């Protein structure tokens, strides 16, 4: 820290300073120990409060003859303290309880807002968004938009990646980055650039990651080198109000206008209806291993997800649908009645509309079938799930072609499909061609 030559040095004597301080602080205690500042200001504060109380009493007495005076004094005396910064009310500057309200730490350290103020800000934001024809989109990082690995977790077969990393001088045109200072490599998911560019037209975008703040900022730089998309809306694990959970309570947006992209459903237990669950993007071997997959990673196969038919391209089509349903269709409906959660549900329900599905030995016998993930996925996709076969059934889902129901399906020329058919349909938001998901003997083990 250096002083600029023309900085206004108002005083050149410590005596001036002392007298100024004494006047300002209005109380004087024995010595000049710095620790006592807090007490002094508190004393001052309580004096102010007392003075104000006296004023209020006076006002009450004068209430009959002077309404004008009441108006002005009231304004000064009554502040709801809707939020605080550094422990001071954001409106009146008074000291307030440090723990009041919700910490909005990702915007700025020391900033807290109470719930009426959050409601006010969300309302104001909603008006703004309706004018701009924009909604909110919350984006997870790992396995949703990108995949990262620590360098020491990389296998020797992955060494070729290190020499193929893209330049950090030209981030916009790269997708594989070596971040030596973080001892990491990061691979962006195919199509992510186009996805962000188009989504930005329809949504105000936020990052919300379980990673820490430095990681979140570093990834934001890779995804948004021009700093056009995220601004200060980068939320990391230390900014949430609950451990291991993500929540919309720190997001300044109406829940009815928020869509979330994440590969971890359990992070959003309170907001499942806003969630578009993403198929995990595993590029590095360490990532597959972490999730217990024994198959070869994309990095080892020297391959990648499809650019134009991959998860992000599919989801972008869904986002466009929901956005246009919200803003373009049904203009009779008042904006305040619209809810992205309802639109999302109805888009999903169209996908397997009319399908009647029976599962054959897919779930453990003791397991209640209707609480199984695949059953729930199928129902959300609009299919009807049945326990027993009848002629109305259209699909039998099985791992084994020789179960009774599988053979029935073959004889009755119904679709016999592998469970992955449902998962792929769910993640890609499109009914997949059944023939691509046959039930083979080899797959049954």
């Amino acid at each position: 820290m250096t002083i600029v030559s023309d900085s206004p040095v108002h005083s050149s004597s410590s005596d001036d300073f002392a007298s100024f301080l004494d006047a300002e602080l209005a109380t004087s205690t024995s010595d000049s120990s710095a620790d006592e500042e807090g007490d002094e200001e508190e004393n001052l504060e309580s004096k102010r409060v007392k003075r104000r109380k006296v004023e209020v009493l006076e006002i009450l007495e004068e209430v009959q003859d002077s309404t004008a005076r009441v108006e002005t004094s009231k304004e000064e005396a009554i502040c709801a303290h809707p939020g605080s910064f550094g422990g001071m009310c954001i409106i009146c500057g008074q000291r307030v309880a440090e723990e009041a309200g919700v910490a909005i730490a990702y915007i700025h350290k020391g900033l807290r807002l109470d719930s009426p103020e959050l409601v006010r800000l969300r309302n104001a934001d909603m008006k703004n968004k309706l004018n701009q024809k924009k909604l909110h989109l919350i984006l997870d990082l790992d396995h949703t938009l990108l995949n990262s690995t620590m360098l020491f977790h990389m296998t020797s077969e992955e060494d070729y990646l290190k020499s193929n990393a893209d330049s950090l001088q030209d981030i916009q045109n790269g997708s594989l980055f070596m971040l030596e200072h973080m001892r990491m490599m990061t691979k962006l998911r195919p199509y992510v650039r186009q996805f962000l560019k188009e989504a930005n037209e329809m949504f105000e975008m936020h990052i919300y990651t379980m990673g820490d703040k430095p990681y979140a900022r570093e990834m934001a730089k890779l995804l948004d080198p021009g700093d056009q998309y995220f601004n200060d809306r980068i939320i990391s694990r230390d900014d949430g109000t609950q451990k291991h959970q993500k929540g919309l309570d720190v997001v300044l947006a109406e829940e009815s206008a928020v869509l979330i992209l994440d590969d971890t459903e359990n992070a959003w237990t309170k907001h499942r209806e806003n969630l578009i669950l993403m198929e995990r993007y595993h590029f590095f071997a360490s990532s597959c291993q972490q999730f217990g997959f024994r198959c070869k990673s994309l990095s080892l196969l020297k391959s990648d997800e499809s650019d134009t038919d991959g998860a992000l391209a599919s989801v972008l089509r869904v986002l466009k649908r929901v956005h246009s349903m919200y803003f373009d269709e049904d203009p009779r409906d008042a904006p305040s009645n619209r809810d992205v959660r309802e639109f999302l549900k109805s888009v999903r329900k169209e996908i397997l509309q009319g399908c009647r599905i029976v599962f054959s030995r897919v779930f453990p016998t003791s397991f209640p079938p209707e609480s199984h993930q695949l059953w729930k996925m199928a129902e959300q996709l609009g299919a009807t799930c049945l326990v027993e076969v009848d002629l109305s059934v259209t699909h039998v889902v099985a791992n084994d072609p020789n179960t009774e129901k599988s053979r029935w399906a073959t004889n009755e020329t119904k679709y016999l499909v592998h469970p992955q058919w449902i998962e792929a349909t769910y993640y890609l938001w499109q009914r997949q061609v059944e023939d691509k998901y046959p039930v083979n003997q080899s797959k049954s083990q």
Partner: protein
Amino acid sequence: MFFHITLERNMQLHPRHFGRNLRENLIAKLMKDVEGTCSGRHGFVVAITGIENVGKGLIRDGTGFVTFPVKYRCVVFRPFKGQILEAVVTMVNKMGFFAEAGPVQIFVSNHLIPDDMEFQSGDMPNYTTSDGSVKIQKDSEVRLKLIGTRVDATEIFCIGTIKDDFLGVINDPTTA
């Protein structure tokens, strides 16, 4: 406000620093310990400008450390409630804006931004009057009034307002 004042501090020095460079070591340690720190009473210590006096050292039993009372002159910065301050905007969002004046972080909530200025989101968020003539965005210079200050060990927080006469933008980065 800036002040040039004399402060005193008891410096503890390890015996390994004794010898010809004792005084230099003492000053170097003083600068390291004090510059850039805050105290509630004096504010932010910007720079040490000179040593007035180094008192007699007192050897501490058992450790061999010596305590020297050092009187030094320094420039400090302390904001006051009611003070008018010029600051640079660092961040604008729907809650208001943050500004910086040296070590001081100031928050101006949108309650304390004139009602005719409206928030505009986008890649350069800003508050703009309806006729577009006045705009506050990142890097704008603003004149504001402090209505609350708090000095911590390392940081100074302030609440500011621009909802008053003669307050607001003094330099717009887009027209500079």
